[in-house]
């Protein structure tokens, strides 16, 4: 019978069929970070249980560590406790811990793929909703809460109910200066932030096949902003080349066996999806968010939409509240809006390719007066690579701060925040109320658009630079 990619991976991991689309699934990879890891480890210890397969579990601090240059685990005091708990808990359970300053440390969803811990066809969880990022390599990856994380530590399994399946085909050629981030923001704007609820989403189409692995990770990263727990992309030769030689990727004779297995990972020709959408990418412009939900997005050359045109009263109210919070007026152009902060980082856009793209635009230019601009590499490896290529110098010369790897002001869990009322252009994935700090106003955008805003001091179409 014809099966989708998702079903192939799912079926291969069923230990017990529990009926009603429920299954006990084997979990091949489990990542822990400093916020969600400690409570799960504590829960296991409290119940007198042991970690069943520590060799399949990996930990690193990312959320609550400072990104200040020269930082250590205690630079942000409150995070220091979480760091200690994660490190001690990991060591006690024989879980590999990637420490600050060591290659392997970084945002979990950046370090996992880059180490080759994430492989096509594996099941992978983390106590973090952006675990869906890893689907970009063809893994069945999803975020869980700390209770499910504890369950997986104790049993190396999870009970899950099979979701419905949606396929999104991005077809056509991307315009000049249009990034994967623009594609996914556009999609969320079009379908709405709840469209993926209850679904696993497979991204396909010529634009996806033509995209480098890093771009695919960005696309899958924002699946949860579309409401979906899973996003995934069939692995192809690009994926296999990208993985080759990575620290934990299969080598030698084993890599041949792995490749044979991975080449089976695609949706069969006549596989059936519960929902199928096609997006013409040629029509997509650089996209920014104007509101407080990732569905509130618009092309950079557009006019801020007027809530008055919305029929549904609740929705109209929500849009008014969003404009109010953002300090914007309907009917105005979004381009030209003054910016105070720029953040280039997060698991959406902090990989080496993102930094290269940003550096191309930053080279020889300077951050506008009154703008604070940060570049926070996604991992220690990204940081070292960028420094080897001289990207740090380009950013520093242009007036950006070059910081230590972690989540930083994406979520403001480490004491770093965008000040109240300040307007930030961020390459991250969430523009929720208070996400980057109480009262902070976030515009989501691609790395190129973030650099352009930093340099111009206003929101501006990066294609005009």
């Amino acid at each position: 019978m014809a099966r989708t990619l998702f079903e192939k991976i799912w079926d291969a991991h069923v230990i017990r069929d529990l009926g009603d689309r429920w299954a006990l699934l084997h979990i091949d990879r489990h990542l822990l970070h400093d916020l969600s890891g400690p409570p799960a480890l504590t829960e296991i210890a409290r119940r007198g249980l042991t970690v069943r397969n520590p060799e399949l579990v990996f930990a690193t601090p990312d959320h609550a560590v400072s990104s200040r240059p020269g930082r250590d685990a205690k630079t942000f005091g409150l995070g220091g406790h979480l760091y200690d708990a994660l490190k001690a808990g990991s060591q006690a359970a024989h879980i590999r811990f990637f420490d600050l300053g060591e290659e392997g440390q970084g945002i979990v969803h950046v370090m996992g793929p880059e180490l080759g811990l994430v492989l096509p066809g594996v099941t992978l969880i983390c106590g973090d909703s952006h675990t869906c990022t890893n689907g970009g390599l063809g893994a069945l990856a999803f975020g869980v809460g700390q209770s499910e994380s504890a369950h997986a530590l104790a049993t190396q399994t999870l009970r899950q109910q099979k979701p419905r399946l949606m396929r999104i085909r991005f077809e056509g050629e991307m315009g000049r200066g249009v990034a994967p981030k623009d594609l996914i923001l556009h999609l969320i704007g079009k379908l709405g932030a709840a469209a993926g609820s209850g679904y696993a989403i497979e991204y396909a189409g010529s634009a996806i096949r033509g995209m480098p692995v890093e771009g695919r990770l960005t696309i899958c990263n924002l699946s949860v902003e579309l409401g979906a727990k899973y996003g995934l992309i069939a692995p192809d030769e690009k994926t296999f080349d990208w993985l080759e030689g990575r620290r934990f990727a299969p080598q030698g004779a084993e890599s041949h066996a792995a490749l044979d297995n991975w080449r089976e990972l695609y949706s069969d020709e006549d596989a059936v999806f519960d929902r199928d959408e096609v997006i013409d990418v040629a029509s997509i412009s650089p996209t920014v968010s104007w509101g407080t939900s990732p569905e509130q997005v618009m092309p950079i050359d557009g006019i801020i939409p007027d809530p008055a045109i919305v029929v549904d009263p609740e929705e109209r109210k929500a849009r008014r509240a969003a404009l109010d919070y953002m300090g914007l007026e309907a009917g105005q152009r979004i381009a030209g809006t003054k910016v105070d902060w720029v953040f280039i980082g997060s698991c959406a856009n902090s990989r080496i390719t993102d930094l290269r793209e940003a550096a191309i635009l930053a080279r020889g230019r300077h951050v506008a007066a009154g703008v604070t601009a940060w570049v926070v590499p996604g991992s220690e490896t990204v940081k070292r690579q960028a420094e080897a290529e001289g990207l740090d110098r380009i950013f520093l010369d242009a007036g950006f701060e070059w910081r230590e790897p972690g989540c930083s002001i994406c979520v403001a869990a480490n004491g770093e925040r965008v000040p109240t009322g300040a307007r930030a252009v961020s390459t991250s994935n969430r523009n929720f109320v208070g996400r980057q700090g109480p009262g902070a106003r976030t515009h989501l955008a691609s790395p190129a658009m973030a650099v352009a805003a930093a340099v111009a001091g206003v929101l501006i179409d990066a294609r005009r630079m």
Partner: protein
Amino acid sequence: MQPFVTVKGPAAPLMQANVDTDVIIRIERLTAGADLGHYALEALRYLPDGRPNPDCVLNEPRFVGAPILLAGRNFGCGSSREGAVTALMGMGLRCVIAPSFGDIFYSNCFQNGMLPVVLPERDVERLATLACKGDVTVDLGAGVVVTPDGDEISFVIDRLRREALLDGLDDIGLTLKWADDIAIWQRADRAMRPWVWKTQGEDRI
């Protein structure tokens, strides 16, 4: 886990869409180990100076400590933080009724004895307009929500989740009974996909 059988009480109408987990509980409150119930939905419940926001429906005397919340679509979207569920429970909630939920938030509810009920938008809106008239009852055993004027609206919860919630079952304990099945699966997998298991040595080159 706390079982959930039936709950009766005021149902607070918070009818906005996309109430996300950052709004439900700020991440800094989690890192600081704060009293989560106090800080639940703080951006809505409090003014910037920390005083209760008089315009927030949750601060109306009849809804303070209400066990039921009526919400807009996509409630609990965003992060996986389980603190979002425990914070709402810290406010006294045991049940949220909404047209749809964030998927991970939805699962996390069941791990903590909180019942998320999905009803069509029009039913949630009807409940919201009746909210001032009296108590709402949510009966998981019977699968019905009883409105203040006595109408019954039925809802569906997946069988496994319903049973686990009614009995307050412990997932980990149940799964550990299948340790043999897990061991058999893993043994076969090691032979079939050895590369998945060779993780002890990044230093294995």
